[in-house]
């Protein structure tokens, strides 16, 4: 046991003395910081999807254009939109092209008339549309703003169609005269607007996790994603590589001339990789907790999950070292493995992985299991909620380690 510890601690010291390895040990922290900036976690203004700048040109002669303009400028929309009112459609389009606005909403002159008096456009004359002139370089913003405008129009259309159907029924029942259609229709429409702010009879209560966790910090997903991405690099390119480097540099032969068995050497190397991995993830967790007040969840469960994640990842590092012939091969394949596992496990999408076949395939990566566990804990889960990812990671580490031992036995730890 003492020999195992000595070898393991030596590897840990070497890793932290090597400036090259140090770069990769701090890499997840750097990338998490970058992701924090990208998602707006560190800035007052939030992400780029808040206060989207749009220009509005209202040329409508009726009330609808004014109502739409007023709704877009409403207090409830302040966080979403930054509206600039303009008079000239050409100027609005120009300003979008210059990048001053993400889009320009142009309300045509006859908009109210067409929407109210000819809602179904079945005669081909009622198709007056709002023009939303967009910056094609910002498709996401454009889509969001269009959804908001669609929502407003949808509400208006409910009122219009309801009034129209009601009036039509009253005329057919001979309860009103055709010349009263407009007046009665307007009265019904006004009554609808005053009766209900949101014209919907059926609402849906969603079992949505975000709704229950309004203060959830996106870094709680991003940081584990980056931790797992670079942990894979550490266990393969730093850890797995060190076994072959010792062989190539002759230190492994020297070690085996001492009364130290192959199993002890291999065990010590594995312990070293686990220690390096645990320290790397611990640095990220401690730093993000202190600097960004990031709550990772139940401390004991977090520690156990870290150890399990490192063991699962280390399994891959050892298997790679068992199969590879040179340290260079371990580095190259290790980097490829880190990137592929990162992609499959969802590290590049902020921890959200694939579904279906790819989702099943992602279960071979420690990234997917560990991120699931870290997310559960960050959302307030307890130890019992992360038994499955912990068991999955430990099983992965155990199986891979057994495979590596078999290969090392067959091929010899110190083969040339």
């Amino acid at each position, binding site marked *: 046991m003492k020999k195992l510890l000595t070898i393991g601690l030596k590897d840990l010291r070497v890793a932290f003395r090597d400036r090259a390895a140090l770069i990769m040990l701090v890499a997840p922290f750097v990338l998490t910081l970058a992701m924090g900036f990208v998602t707006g976690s560190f800035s007052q*203004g939030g992400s*780029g999807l808040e206060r989207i700048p749009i220009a509005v040109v209202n040329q409508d002669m009726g009330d609808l254009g004014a109502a739409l303009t007023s709704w877009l400028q409403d207090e409830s929309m302040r966080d979403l939109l930054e509206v600039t009112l303009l008079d000239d459609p050409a100027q609005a389009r120009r300003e979008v092209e210059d990048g001053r606005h993400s889009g320009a909403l142009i309300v045509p002159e006859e908009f109210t008339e067409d929407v109210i008096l000819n809602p179904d456009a079945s005669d081909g004359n009622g198709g007056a549309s709002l023009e939303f002139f967009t910056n094609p370089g910002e*498709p996401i913003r454009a889509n969001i703003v269009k959804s908001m405008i669609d929502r407003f129009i949808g509400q208006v259309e409910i009122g219009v169609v309801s009034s129209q159907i009601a009036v039509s029924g009253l005329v057919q029942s001979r309860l009103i005269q055709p010349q009263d259609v407009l007046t009665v229709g307007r009265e019904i429409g006004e009554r609808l607007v005053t009766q209900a702010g949101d014209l*919907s009879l059926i609402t849906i209560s969603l079992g949505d996790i975000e709704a229950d966790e309004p203060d959830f910090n996106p870094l709680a997903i991003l940081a584990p994603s980056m931790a797992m991405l670079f942990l894979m690099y550490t266990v393969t390119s730093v850890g797995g590589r060190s076994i072959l480097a010792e062989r190539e540099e002759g230190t492994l032969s020297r070690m085996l001339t001492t009364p130290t068995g192959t199993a002890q050497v291999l065990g010590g190397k594995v312990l070293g990789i686990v220690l390096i991995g645990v320290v790397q993830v611990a640095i990220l967790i401690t730093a993000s907790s202190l600097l960004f007040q990031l709550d990772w969840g139940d401390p004991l469960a977090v520690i156990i999950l870290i150890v399990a994640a490192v063991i699962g990842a280390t399994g891959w590092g050892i298997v790679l070292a068992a199969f590879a012939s040179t340290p260079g091969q371990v580095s190259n394949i290790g*980097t490829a493995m880190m*990137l592929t596992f990162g992609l499959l496990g969802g590290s590049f999408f902020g921890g959200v992985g694939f579904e279906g076949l*790819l989702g099943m395939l992602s279960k071979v990566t420690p990234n997917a299991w560990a991120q699931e566990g870290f997310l559960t804990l960050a959302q307030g889960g307890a130890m019992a909620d992360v038994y499955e990812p912990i068991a999955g990671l430990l099983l992965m580490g155990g199986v891979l380690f057994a495979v590596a031992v078999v290969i090392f036995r067959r091929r010899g730890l110190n083969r040339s």
Partner: protein
Amino acid sequence: MKKIINIAWKDIKNRFTSISEILFYLVLPVFFIFMLGGGFEKFGSDQELPRLAVVDEDQSTLSIELVTTLMNSQVVEVETLSLAGAVSALVDEQIDAYLQIPTGFGGQLLAGESTELELRALEDMQDARAAEQEALTIVETLSRSLLAAHVSTTERELLAPFSSEIEREAYFDNSLSLAQDAFGNLPDRVEMTVPDQSEALDYREATAAQANAGQLVTWVFIPLLGTSVVLTDERTMGTLRRLLTTPTSKSTFLLGTFVGQLVPAWVQMALLIGFGGLVMGVYWGGSMVGLFVLLLAFSLASVAFGTLMGTVVKTSGQANNLSIMSGMAMALLGGCWWPSELFPDVLLTANKVLPTTWVMDGLNGLMLQGFGLMEVLPLAGVLLVFAVVFFLIGVWRFRFE
């Protein structure tokens, strides 16, 4: 000239000695472009639909109509289950979501009262979100028709009460049918337009194009930063010192090294652009000259930055790791992984110091905003300034030993 070619050829041969280099040069970039650039959506049309269970506890005419409409959806696969069955199926992930229609649903709606349905979905699953969205859309469609029918019936009742409940129901049903027709015929009232010179790509095409461009930049940028590894390798192995004994100048050596890095990068970019265009259907813009100029300037800025890094680090291990880390960070902050329109304003100003920002702005402009050569030139100009500055500092700091 011959010396430059010899040095470059030697570097290219060294780089591609190992087959694993092909992995980073082509296999992984193509894999990432396929996965992140919408390859599965493009080629996976026979994927399974999201699964939605409906728990109809009401069994009224209206609830049956809602279930039937859901069953006809082309977007989700719907089955009816009991509440216990749905909960168990959701826990076992056999379904993505379930919608519970409570007892009294039909009666409340006929009376014009609002009612609430419950929808439970798997957390953080795209299919669950898709099932949820489809359920919301269908319920909203039914809801607005019901509201119109209710308004119509109420208005009729205000002027002349119905003689019987049967007459009332008939009036309601007729109004509902008229409302469904009317809502079905509504024109799209919002027309999205783009500048004349731009290609009108839909949302998916536009975001897929951005993802393709981002991956192209990332996979070319990081190896070009690896110029630092070549320089440190030569220095630490003593081959640079040996060069001093030959009539080879510092500029000849550096030029040879640059060419040895740039030529494979240009070939790689051409291959990835070809893959994007031919396989993924990416529209790279109307100006191939603009694309060429932009990527040429970007590759020069990248190789110059790699040279600068090579003068800062001491070992090839440091150079390699710094290339990967800084390359990934600069790709992320420059908008290669996530569209920069999602970035906060402060970052959109700060990231102007990165070459990745300028090349992504140029590529987005070419693909989505109809940029031509003239619009690309200022961006390429900035990249060339980066190249000159990095190169001058790199040469100034460069030491053979």
